């Protein structure tokens, strides 16, 4: 093994990359526009939820409740009849239907605790759960405010002071921006190395390298460092200028520590890219493989939904993926300001997975190359 070979071959990879406009555009897109849209387009929990109201009371109070629903959380409510309600919900036109019974206001003022019925289309998870909470609060507030004009209302004896740490406003763009950086780090490192390997195979230049005094280990290591370096630099740029700068997301912890973690992660993912590159015989096959690999990596690693929501077996399987640990590490460092004392287990896990992937990829790479020669 010669370090000089690895260096020169890596420089060659970088030079090749600068001449590949498609990949350059992909990198630029992934670390600017894509992060920006992922951060800003992340819908708030409740966004224009369609609501219909069956108002059988037609009192000032029912009018007051109806007018409390407005964009952006809700669309302006449609007033429908009891009969229309089922058909509209079956057709999926409304997520919520609020049924205000006759004599609601009178019963309320008489202290008879009347009941409003809220129908929720629970097949629409995204809106159903949070939406019904909002509606409950809105209705309760309106009723209370209305009733307060007529009598005193007791405060509950024990208060609950809820504080959200690390992201007090639960601003989704904070989360979306950083998770997009993480997803793009994985995606690009796999695509760049895998595609570079396949392109070399298609052009016959890998074969050419083999007649030179270089070993498969050197060829592979050069790709790992070169592509890893590009993605690392791009993600550092994205973190500083896009996430902190343009999107002004506060970063609690040390960016240097995060980038150190990213390098370890890149070691694992670039190895994975090479492994996939040896499995696929052509670009199209690589593309198909990518679809089946990348999506699970991104969606089940805890970067999209909480790991707690997955079945245990899935949680265990996903511990074998570097992404899972990288997401933990990134969340700990970037949001919670954790230091190395906290995240060292993730560093070790990713490094171990990376070493295994690298070994696997190298064995596979040697084998395919022997078959090609």
């Amino acid at each position, binding site marked *: 093994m010669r370090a000089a070979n690895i260096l020169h071959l890596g420089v060659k990879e970088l030079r090749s990359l600068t001449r590949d406009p498609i990949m350059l555009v992909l990198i630029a897109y992934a670390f600017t526009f894509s992060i920006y849209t992922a951060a800003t387009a992340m819908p708030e929990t409740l966004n224009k939820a369609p609501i219909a109201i069956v108002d059988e009371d037609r009192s000032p109070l029912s009018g007051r409740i109806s007018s409390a629903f407005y964009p952006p959380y809700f669309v302006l409510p449609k007033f429908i009849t009891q009969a229309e309600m089922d058909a509209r919900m079956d057709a999926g036109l409304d997520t919520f239907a609020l049924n205000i019974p006759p004599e609601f206001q009178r019963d309320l003022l008489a202290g008879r605790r009347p009941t409003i019925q809220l129908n929720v289309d629970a097949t*629409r998870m995204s809106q*159903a759960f949070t939406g019904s909470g909002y509606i409950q609060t809105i209705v309760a507030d309106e009723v209370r405010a209305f009733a307060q004009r007529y009598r005193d209302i007791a405060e509950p004896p024990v208060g*609950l002071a*809820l504080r959200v740490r690390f992201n007090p406003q639960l601003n989704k763009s904070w989360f979306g921006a950083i998770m997009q950086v993480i997803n793009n780090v994985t995606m690009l490192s796999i695509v760049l190395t895998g595609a570079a390997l396949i392109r070399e195979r298609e052009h016959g230049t890998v074969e050419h390298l083999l007649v*030179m005094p270089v070993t498969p280990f050197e060829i592979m290591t050069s790709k790992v460092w070169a592509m890893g370096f590009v993605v690392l630099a791009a993600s550092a740029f994205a973190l500083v200028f896009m996430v902190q700068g343009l999107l002004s997301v506060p970063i609690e912890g040390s960016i240097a520590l995060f980038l150190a973690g990213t390098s370890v992660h890149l070691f694992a993912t670039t190895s994975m890219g090479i492994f996939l590159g040896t499995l696929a015989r052509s670009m199209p096959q690589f593309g198909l493989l990518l679809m089946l690999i990348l999506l699970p990596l991104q969606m089940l690693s805890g970067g999209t939904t*909480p790991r707690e929501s997955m079945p245990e077996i899935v949680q265990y399987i996903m511990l074998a993926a570097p992404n899972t640990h990288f997401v933990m590490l990134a969340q700990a460092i970037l949001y919670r300001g954790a230091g190395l004392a906290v995240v060292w287990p993730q560093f070790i896990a990713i490094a171990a997975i990376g070493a295994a992937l690298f070994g696997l990829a190298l064995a596979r790479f040697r084998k395919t190359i022997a078959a090609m020669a």
Partner: protein
Amino acid sequence: MNRDVLAQTGGPGDAAPPVACLRDVTLRYGKVHALSEVSLDIPAGCMAGLIGPDGVGKSSLLALIAGARKIQAGQVEVLGGDMTEASHRRTVCPRIAYMPQGLGKNLYPTLSVFENIDFFGRLFGHDGGERARRIEALTLATGLRPFLDRPAGKLSGGMKQKLGLCCALIHDPDLLILDEPTTGVDPLSRRQFWELIGRIRHTRPGMSVVVATAYMEEAARFDWLVAMDAGRVLAAETPQGLLKHTDTRSLEAAFIALLPEDKRRGYRPVEIPPRPAEADGETAIEARDLTMRFGDFTAVDHVNLRIQRGEIFGFLGSNGCGKTTTMKMLTGLLPPSEGRAWLFGHEVDPHDLATRRRVGYMSQFFSLYTELTVRQNLELHARLFHVPVEEIPHRVEEMIGRFELAGVADMLPGALPLGHRQRLSLAVAMIHKPEMLILDEPTSGVDPVARDAFWRMLVELSRHDGVTIFISTHFMNEAGRCDRISLMHAGLVLATDTPAALTKQRAADSLEDAFIGYLEDATAVVEADAPLRSDRTPAPMPAQATATEAGPHGWRRFFDPRRVVSYARREALELRRDPVRLTLALVGSVILMFVMGYGISLDVEDLTFAVLDRDQTTVSRDYTLNISGSRYFVEQPPITDYDDLDRRMRAGKLSLAIEIPSSFARDIARGRAVEIGAWIDGAMPTRAETVRGYVQGMHAHWLATKAREAGHGDALAGLANLETRFRYNPDVKSLVAMVPAVIPLLLMLIPAMLAALSVVREKELGSITNFYVTPTTRLEFLLGKQLPYVVLSALSFLLLTLLAVTVFGVPLKGSFLTLTAGALLYVGAATAVGLLISTFMRSQIAALFGTAVLTILPAASFSGMIDPVSSLQGVGRLIGEIYPTTHFLTIARGTFSKALNFSDLYASFIPLALAGPVLLGLSAVLLKKQEN
């Protein structure tokens, strides 16, 4: 030059009208002129040849005549009609057969010999008996009869070309167009191929044949020739006429004489001085019983060789006969399965990198880094070969000077003509001054002038620098220049000697004849047990009289279900034999269903929490128990102080931390205001929101319970009740909600992607030409492509539904028949979306990602999967209203969760039923029947 004069002399078919007339035909690819104002009359009823090196426009010209490529400028008349008119093309295409360039380019490699021919027979509307008869006659004539079940991809080069010919001849064409049919084929197969053409012409004397070839020896036997260079016609007349006009003795020389002045400049014939006697003796390479096996396949079979220092040693043989593998083993690049080799007296060790430094290698594809400039390529190789750093600049300059690359040193290799790239490859191979050069078919595709210049360099390296040169080629005249050659076939070395000695041993006229003699001996042994030999039992060609007229009549001309079925059958067969695509089609959707089902799930349970209990009373413990008793939270060891709280939250160990103040119980009892503190980990906002909801609910519940226990329930209860009914999914389970939505998404994404790939794949691999030149109409082609994927997607639908009900436990409450009917219409539309996308995609990789983006975005964002269409606005709303996913989503949710049936959902069926035909029609309009 004197093109006009020569063109007028015409060929032997003067009496009959020409089979093809071209007037001022110009063809451009971007800025490159492939053809410039070509005017030509190709005589009918004879063998007409196009000669010239690669890239001079021969293939473009043939594609225009065949109607496979769109005419940009000028006039092309073939078989008496204008080829710009679609109606004429449709009329004559059953009379034309076209075999594009590249071994087996128009064949389907995973299909067997029989299936390939059968497919073409079906396209031309032959019925079962007719096809069987024709296939028998054709395979008998070509000697393919014993190999009917072998996949086309596993045939040798010669057999592939014979199969291509069978496919081309199945419909008795009047004009046969062959684009370099014998390139890369061994000389015996080449000779058999031309004999076959001869016999076919004998049985069908009226048939015209137009051939492009790079072999001048072959061209000498044609009736009439067109010499081409740089998109222009240099001359067009009989071979004899060409020789006479140029006053030369060989066609190769005649061609060089016809080249414009600036190309010929500096041309000198190759002269090879005899090897100096004193060089003899030292052995550069020696091999004993070298054997290489790849699985069952023996690529190289017990090869013995001895090559001397400074010798030019040639390997002659067809593609895939083991030349390259032998070379690599001899020089230690590939460890042999058996046998030994010595390099300069040392035994070759493949793991010894030092050996590689003594060898320079140049492969047949000039595998240079096209992203690096000429100079950068040289520098990189110098570094990798460990040329001392201080010497590199000097060495690079030396190579640039020696191989005449000064003018192009800072250009990218991709932009250079082939001849320059070839010299650069040689320079790269020589940069570390190796003692031996291995050149694997270094001259393919290079024009004769550049080829000879290259040989002069080789001669100088050998004679002047004493470099041992080991070269493989399939050009006979190049083999003749070697000091010694080995004839190889199917992994065996047939003979090794000087070219002259070999010719003499066989008492042959030429090296080619000698080689054929050896080949015939070798194949006679191999095929002795094969009952049918093509040249011994020439079968009669299919009789014309019994042939049904190829052109169908009436409506079948525009839409013939048989052709649809033919395409569908073929697509299904190919798909069945492509594991990667098949896996994606069936397993892919299952994997993705799991991923999405769990990945989008919002059911959060087992969240971690811990308590900082400063009160430590039964009341405070009761509060804690209220939380830890629920299925949502799991209690962790208590928090000791704020530092502990902070540390554990930063580490992500706690999703929720509760602080109960001291004197909590006492204050409640006294009715004083107390406050419980709760910290939520906000790193993941969705999870934090869920936690917040849970905590608020539990807090309220605890208060209510306490109040009831204390006996003043009413005071705390609200003023009014809000009774929430979660309909269709009473437990508010994510999976129940997500799974019926994921099915429509997957049934859009994967069928569309597969359908798009199926068309674009043909574009990329070249077999789309079969659609261009056969009577298949656009709609037939598209429907044929679509059918297998509709069936496959329907299967996938059943699989997904089964999974949803069993594994995910989502009950199907409504009508299964309604869901299935909707799914069938939907996958029809989804595959049509893919076909539509395929009409404007060129590469498979673009089709793959293009389809992913174009289907996922509208399906996931605008179709009501997350936000209902009714809450969208603007363009998103418009797309949502018409996109098929919207309507199938309503059907899927309706049947799965809402217990609906057809009468409730018919409104969603109408747009869904329209979508498929509309999209398919649009694709048919946009699909091109010719290459641009």
